[in-house]
């Protein structure tokens, strides 16, 4: 299995992951505090970090971690209101080596995203932005 052959994380990747974690912690915390407008731009930044991190993890043989990074990117884009990018990344994550339960979760997240996208793009209806229920 790929897991056994995974190479160690290079310092540059750990640095990238640390930067992503910082911005994502801020986005989640501000959203939990109800400061959705403050959190709003942070979702996109966190997502773009994840998009850079995913292929680097893949290059190290860490395919499941790469898939998780794409799921995280999609989830962040969705919260930031960039639904098209979110849908694409959910689809990319589904092409990765997911456990059955994760696959079910991601399919459900993608369906919700597409539903939201069709309502927004086709009907022009407004959507909630960056809202996130509390929980871990």
């Amino acid at each position, binding site marked *: 299995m790929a*897991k056994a052959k995974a190479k160690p*994380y290079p310092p540059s990747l*750990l640095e990238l*992951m*640390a930067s*992503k*974690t*910082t911005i*994502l*912690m*801020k986005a*989640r*915390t501000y959203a*939990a*505090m*109800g400061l959705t407008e403050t959190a709003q731009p942070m979702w996109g930044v*966190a997502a773009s970090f*994840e998009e850079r991190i995913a292929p680097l993890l893949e290059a190290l043989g860490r395919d*499941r*971690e790469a*898939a*998780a*990074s794409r*799921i*995280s990117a999609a*989830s*962040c884009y969705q*919260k930031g209101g960039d639904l098209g990018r979110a849908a694409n990344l959910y689809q990319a994550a589904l092409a990765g080596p*997911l*456990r059955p*339960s*994760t696959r079910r*979760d991601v399919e459900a*997240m993608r369906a919700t995203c597409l539903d939201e996208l069709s309502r927004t793009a086709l009907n022009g209806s407004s959507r909630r932005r960056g809202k*996130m*229920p*509390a*929980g*871990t």
Partner: protein
Amino acid sequence: MSLPTMRCAIEDLERWDPRLFLEPHAVACVGVMSRYAGPPATFEVACEGVTSRWLGKATNFRLEVSWAEQTAAKAARLLATMQQKPVVELASVALAFVLARRLLALGRLDLNDYGERADYRSPTAECVLEVSGTEDPSELGRRHREKVAQALDNTYGWGACVVVCAFSAKGHRIRVSRHDPAEA
């Protein structure tokens, strides 16, 4: 025989890893703890599967968490603007990070977003960290079982650490457990 006691100031959280933006969590933790009593707050911590040089062969210990007046003032402002449930969740994350560093030795934690869930993981220990909190102590066992199942079903196929905190006027409690991966 008296239980081993771990002491910490909640403000230490920010010093340990200033980049992690844990100040709101520390403040929320004070917000919850101070509703029950002044500092320090004492937690009875029950461990399962945890190996720690500090803990030795013990499976229970006492966690004493202190805080500064300045943090209490921030907490009062936070409580005035936030609903109780997310405050308890933030508070539990603060305590989980204390235990991740002082007890579980998880190293630097990475965070991924997973829909409504936060997905904390330790890349060096190949372990996820699942956190939850409640103000209903009767919920502790059920919540812990749920979180163990959820954590072991993690995306990576890694092992898991689970921290569930129960804040209560009858005494705060924390259940901490460490589990091997659910699959080979």
